[in-house]
């Protein structure tokens, strides 16, 4: 049975900066699963990772693995594998020697070391590059070696710090798919730091969204996407139309007053001030009779399967993703409605 990694009240303030880089980070990481630490740059996710790794001393808080307190334990004794954004491969060693490094410092014999390194290179699908030096390899190949190196000594936890962000888009997608397959096979507790929400949602079993050094929300990607706890999360994960509004009673029942119109409030909404979110894909073009509101189309971007519309209702700007085959017949006053269940309201 795999032990659980628990982080309790981790905080760090850098001397130069007044504001805390990380403040009271508490989380229990699901064993054997991938947790994506997501946030804009400067939100403290890399600092958190460095503290979990033991590369940075926290001002307060603790890191525990199973029953073992790792807070004061040196990084080299934590048995946590790390994959760095810059790959950080040793330039004077070949790919195989890089992968062997963790075994070499543990005093494992040359034969066994070699066997396991080649096995790892096999796992990341580049056994043919074993005797190359990092400078002779592409970014994607280097990152594979960095991953093989971090896994070779059989770490208890794998930490990845923006591992794909230095690669170009196509390669990134390719490696992301492979990483997902590999990590699923390994069932290794993984913390994956990224600022790319697409990467986080597709790879992470669980998301931890950070903002200004604090955890904003955590949970399964689909839950966070559908039920964000704050406008920040709503806008950070995917695109969203977020409004401040008010929930009130009228003749038909509870309604939400929004800048572009009045909509029936979803169940469980309380009266009073609230904020509301409508995802662009939840807005659809309809007939004038069924329209909840009309908007002027300011611009339309054809994106293949769907078209993104930049809409305006009075002073309010809206985004809508509509299927590309739907004709925009009256761009000055396009009849629109929010799909059933497409309105999310939080008091």
């Amino acid at each position, binding site marked *: 049975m795999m032990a659980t990694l628990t982080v309790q009240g981790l905080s760090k303030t850098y001397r130069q900066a007044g504001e805390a880089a990380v403040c009271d980070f508490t989380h229990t990481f699901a064993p054997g699963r991938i947790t994506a630490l997501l946030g804009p740059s400067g939100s403290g996710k890399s600092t958190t990772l460095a503290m979990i790794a033991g590369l940075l001393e926290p001002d307060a808080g603790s890191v525990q693995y199973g029953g073992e307190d790792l807070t004061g334990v040196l990084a080299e004794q934590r048995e946590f*594998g790390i994959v760095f954004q*810059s790959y950080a491969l040793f330039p004077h060693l070949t790919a195989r020697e890089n992968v062997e490094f963790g075994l070499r410092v543990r005093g494992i014999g040359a034969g066994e070391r070699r066997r396991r390194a080649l096995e790892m290179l096999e796992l990341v699908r580049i056994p043919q590059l074993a005797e190359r030096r990092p400078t002779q390899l592409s970014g994607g190949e280097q990152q594979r070696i960095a991953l093989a190196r971090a896994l070779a000594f059989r770490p208890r936890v794998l930490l990845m710090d923006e591992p794909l962000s230095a690669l170009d888009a196509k390669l990134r997608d390719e490696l992301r798919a492979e990483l997902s397959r590999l990590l699923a096979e390994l069932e290794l507790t993984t913390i994956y730091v990224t600022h790319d929400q697409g990467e986080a949602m597709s790879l992470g079993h669980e998301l931890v969204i950070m903002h200004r050094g604090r955890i904003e929300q955590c949970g399964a990607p689909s839950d966070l996407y559908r039920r964000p706890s704050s406008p920040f999360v709503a806008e950070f994960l995917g695109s969203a139309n977020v409004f401040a509004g008010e929930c009130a009673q009228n003749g038909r029942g509870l309604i939400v007053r929004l800048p572009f119109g009045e909509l029936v409030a979803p169940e469980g909404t309380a009266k009073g001030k609230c904020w509301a979110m409508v995802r662009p894909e939840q807005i659809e073009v309809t007939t004038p009779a069924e329209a909840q509101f009309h908007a002027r189309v300011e611009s339309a971007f054809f994106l293949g399967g769907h078209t993104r519309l930049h809409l305006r209702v009075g002073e309010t700007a809206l985004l809508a993703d509509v299927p590309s085959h739907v004709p925009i017949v009256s761009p000055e006053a396009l009849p629109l409605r929010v799909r059933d269940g497409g309105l999310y309201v939080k008091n």
Partner: protein
Amino acid sequence: MNLPASIEVAALPVERAREATPRRARISTSKRLLIALLAVILFVVISPVVVVMLGSFLNTSFLGLSSEQWVGDGSDANSLITFQWFSYVLKLYQPQLLFSFQLAVLSVVVCILIGVPAGYLIARGDFPGRRWLEELLLLPLALPGIAISIALIQAYAIIRGRWYFVLFGHLIYTLPFMARCVAGTLRSFDCAELERAAQSLGAGPWQRFFFVVLPSLRHAITLGALLVFAVSFGEFNVSFLLMTPLTATFPSALYATYTFNSFQVSSAATVVFLAVILPVLALIQWLGGDELSKVEQGA
């Protein structure tokens, strides 16, 4: 007959050549100027070396170019080429040559032992006064050698005349080269990230230093060692002023040949000096001017 066709084919390139000629001519004029300028510079720089080299084995009095009388065994008096001055220099100044060689090698060893960690501290250290340490280390390069020598003599009069005093003087000049080479290389890549990677893989501080930092520095240390050797072997100011008869270095012996001996003898001594130093300089050049220029900028 195919003759007309072949004439046509032959005519074509001629036409092209005529078109291209004016442009090519312009380039070659500026090129020719450049080559001429280079030739003049090379001549000015190299001719003294050539003169010294020729002077070291050509029997000038035999040629009737000099009335200088060489008091040797006289066996080569009637031949154009002679190596008697070399054997004289090597015999007479052998102790100095050996001492200079030992000093240079010792300087290299000590610089590796002290200069490498110092360079590491300068580049990677995180302690108050780090910048000051760097400036302090570079200070000797900015001061005249004579000033330093006098200061050394006044401060450490008690060990004057010991060989390690001269070594100490050399180290003041050579340590900055090694430290700058190492620090410059460490700053040119993210060594800290490599060390963190090694740490995450389970390497302790010593393993990190020996398995990651040192191998990354082997180029810089080789270059630094060559520079240190060259600087130490050729160092004159400190050597000359700290010198006693027992601790004279080869450059001060070289000076002595110019003061007390004939042109031929000092030429031969110079050639001996160049024979040691030129291969080292060539190696430095070959290993890369990059780090060298960084060192020079620092100095």
